């Protein structure tokens, strides 16, 4: 790690970026550093540490809007929201334990910049869907803003979407505004407990499809094969010894009870069903969100696949054929997490060729620095997509000083 520059406010961020761009010094942009192991390693660059930009600036519960400085911890925001019975609906994950970085420290801008969302993605949307506006400093050394503090706005290009998932390669966020929502009154989970033998990947994904095609407003849809289920922190699941398929419903009490009944009836044909109430539901969806199932063996590589939901299990099983590993399915089958034995090439060609067949993309999510320096961590861009991506980058950061190479070789 190189020198650390720690600005105290947005003006100092501007000063630093102006100096960096004039001097052609590339920077490693960080909030709390919980995601430094995502994407290409930035080894040796001076670090722009934003952790001092830490304050909630505006929160009006009845407007469903919150603004905070870039590096405000998500935990701090969630506490403020909880006082008004509100939440960040996209369920920001905490990958600290998974990645071997600090837990509970993730920041607002960090989550937005990586566009990370938890199981509720299927119902509430991703981080990008809640990102209303921001202030930032571009790689040109200029302050600019986009969006606003109201939930409905189509004035000008939606640059918040562009910033979401850009991993700090376009501009340094100094302040962000997000939409917040009422906390669900009640949560329950319907479980399908499969027979003892087999992992039931196909059956599980099919059942999730049925649940998501029902009118019961499912807010979580995951399948945990038996090989992982026994690791669950929910005692009941750990003890069943079988694969489980989990479907979450949230909302007002009478509604949740009604929908649970209906879902148990709908899903009963796959196997016996059970219900988890508040505490166990919370544990289960948190461990799915944070991928606790893959924190036991830190040597394994982790791939994140985004595919059409109905194809999730087919793609996963093709990849796992002959390559030892485990699959965990979220987002109704559309999000597949694979944990695999380490290999020098990370099996990238195999993984990506199967994903290509069905449409979607694969990210090498956890791997040693050395491997992430050589294997493309993000799905490679084809010709026209590569050139448009490069031109966008050049429009925001012509000297390539912001997290260069973090996502792609020359981006």
């Amino acid at each position, binding site marked *: 790690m190189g020198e650390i520059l720690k600005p105290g406010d947005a003006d100092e961020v501007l000063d630093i970026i102006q100096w960096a761009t004039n001097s052609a010094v590339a920077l490693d942009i960080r909030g709390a550093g919980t995601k430094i192991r995502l994407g290409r390693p930035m080894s040796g660059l001076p670090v722009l540490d934003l952790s001092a930009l830490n304050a909630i600036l505006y929160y009006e519960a009845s407007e469903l809007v919150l603004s905070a400085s870039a590096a405000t911890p998500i935990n701090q925001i969630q506490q403020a929201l909880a006082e008004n019975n509100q939440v960040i609906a996209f369920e920001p994950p905490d990958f600290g334990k998974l990645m071997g970085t600090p837990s509970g420290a993730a920041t607002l801008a960090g989550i937005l910049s990586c566009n990370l969302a938890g199981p509720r993605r299927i119902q509430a949307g991703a981080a990008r869907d809640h990102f209303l506006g921001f202030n930032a400093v571009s790689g040109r050394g200029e302050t600019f803003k986009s969006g606003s503090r109201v939930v409905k706005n189509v004035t000008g290009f939606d640059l918040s979407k562009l910033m979401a998932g850009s991993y700090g390669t376009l501009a340094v966020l100094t302040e962000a505004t997000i939409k917040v929502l009422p906390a669900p009154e009640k949560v329950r989970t319907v479980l399908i407990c499969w027979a003892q033998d087999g992992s039931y990947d196909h059956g599980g994904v099919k059942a999730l499809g049925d649940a998501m095609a029902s009118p019961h407003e499912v807010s979580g849809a995951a399948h945990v094969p038996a090989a992982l289920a026994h690791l669950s922190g929910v005692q009941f699941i750990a003890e069943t010894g079988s694969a489980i398929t989990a479907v979450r419903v949230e909302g007002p*009490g009478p509604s949740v009870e009604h929908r649970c009944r209906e879902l148990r009836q709908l899903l009963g044909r796959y196997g016996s069903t059970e219900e988890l109430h508040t505490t166990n539901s919370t544990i289960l969806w948190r461990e799915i969100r944070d991928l606790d199932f893959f924190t036991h063996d830190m040597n394994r590589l982790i791939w994140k696949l985004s595919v059409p939901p109905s194809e999730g299990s087919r793609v996963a099983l093709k990849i796992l054929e002959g390559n030892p590993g485990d699959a965990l399915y979220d987002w109704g089958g559309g999000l597949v997490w694979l944990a695999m034995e380490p290999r020098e090439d990370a099996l990238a060609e195999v993984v990506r060729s199967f994903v290509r067949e069905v449409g979607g993309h694969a990210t090498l999510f956890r791997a040693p620095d050395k491997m992430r320096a050589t294997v493309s961590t993000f799905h490679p861009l084809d010709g026209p997509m590569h050139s448009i991506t490069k031109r966008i980058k*050049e429009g925001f950061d012509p000297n390539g000083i912001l997290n260069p190479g973090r996502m792609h070789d020359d981006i």
Partner: protein
Amino acid sequence: MEMPKPDQTIIDRRSQIINDLHSIVPGEGLIADEGELKAFECDGLMAYRQLPLVVVLPETTKQVSQIMAYCYKNDVKIVPRGAGTGLSGGALPLEDAITLGLSKFNKILEIDYDNRCVTTQPGVTNLAITQCVEDRGFYYAPDPSSQIACSIGGNVAENSGGVHCLKYGLTTNNLLGIEMVMMNGEVIRIGGKHLDPSSYDLLGVVTGSEGLLGIITEVTVRILRKPEIAKALLLGFESCESAGDCVAAIIGAGIIPGGMEMMDTFAIQAAEDFVNAGYPRNVAALLIVELDGPAPEVEHLISKVERIATNNNATYIKVSEDEEERLKFWSGRKAAFPAVGRLSPDYLCMDGTIPRGQLAYVLRQMSILSQKYGLRVANVFHAGDGNLHPLILFDANNEGEMEAAEALGADILRLCVQVGGVLTGEHGVGVEKRDLMGEMFTEEDLKQQQRLKCAFDPGHLLNPGKVYPTLHRCAELGKMHVHKGSLPFPDIPRF
């Protein structure tokens, strides 16, 4: 409204351009006859009209690609057009630009129930998507009031909303993928049937880009199961303040209704006279609150909202008894624009968003402005998300009245920005609000937005004169400003 100065050399080459385009799109797909061009001279913002140089209506992505490549090579500008229902002049033709219409892209390509999505050509109407899946109990959630006519490609270009977007999101939240032709003729696919991009969110920036970044030739949207039931409440109040307080209290209680609309006295009377929706006439503000979902949830929430309304001094409360009555409640709201339009030869429909807490203040200021200009203003309002639709009544035959109406509209939008809101919540900037962009954005903000434009369209050939008040050349935007000296910030802690 000043449009970019037409390029006479292009106009002089018109017959050559027509010939060249004809070799790409033969037969009736090319419209050059002045009488026929009339049908394309404006979109839903009818105050502005201009005959296009020529209209081309391709049928295949390949044709679109060839047209774009041709225009790119020959410096010909393009104005994209869907169904022409836009309300901000986004499809207003230019004298020296071809209008590229997508109306022949009218086929639904695939219905995929396993992945709960529909892939369609962009000229298909919003409502047709719902219609093709409703026999299986599905629907497409965003429902702009023009949904019977507006095209899904246009919805993507404008990021259209509708009365249900508080709960179900705008177009951008329901879109999974597109195929798009770039200005140089290249065809790219963004997204698909999976969620979230692996790299920059191009789907997110193209949505709502008002035809400035590319031509959309295919769209994939997610479909949802229809809620089990829906019920609506009519709530009347003696003041807009009470109605506003009630809206805040409903959200404060953790309820996100499927729709929550407000109308002021003027709009209520006009709607009642027009469609007889059964609205109370003796209230200052009316709320329509719709709750949808499983029956037990709807019943539970209806009684909760009733209690909240009573606590907030509602003077009139009525719950829809059946589906017929629910639709009747909505009939007045859905007919509000034409109902108000009946009272006046012309009207302008504005579209600002404000923080809801500012509603009472904004309505008071608006009535002062209305008196100042001597023009009547009716208000309908997506109360849940703060999106205002003031309707300004005027008569274009009276000299100066249209200009006065536009000036009043601009003042109203400035007011929205002053209280922390925005110029447009769902109709887009187009030409209508273009010159007000400086109220919301600095020159730097606007330049950075245009640098994104340059990445897609370096020659400013796509829909020039829309959205951005000043067109900077891309080379000029790309220039780096050298900042102050290189001795950096002695005061900043370094480790």
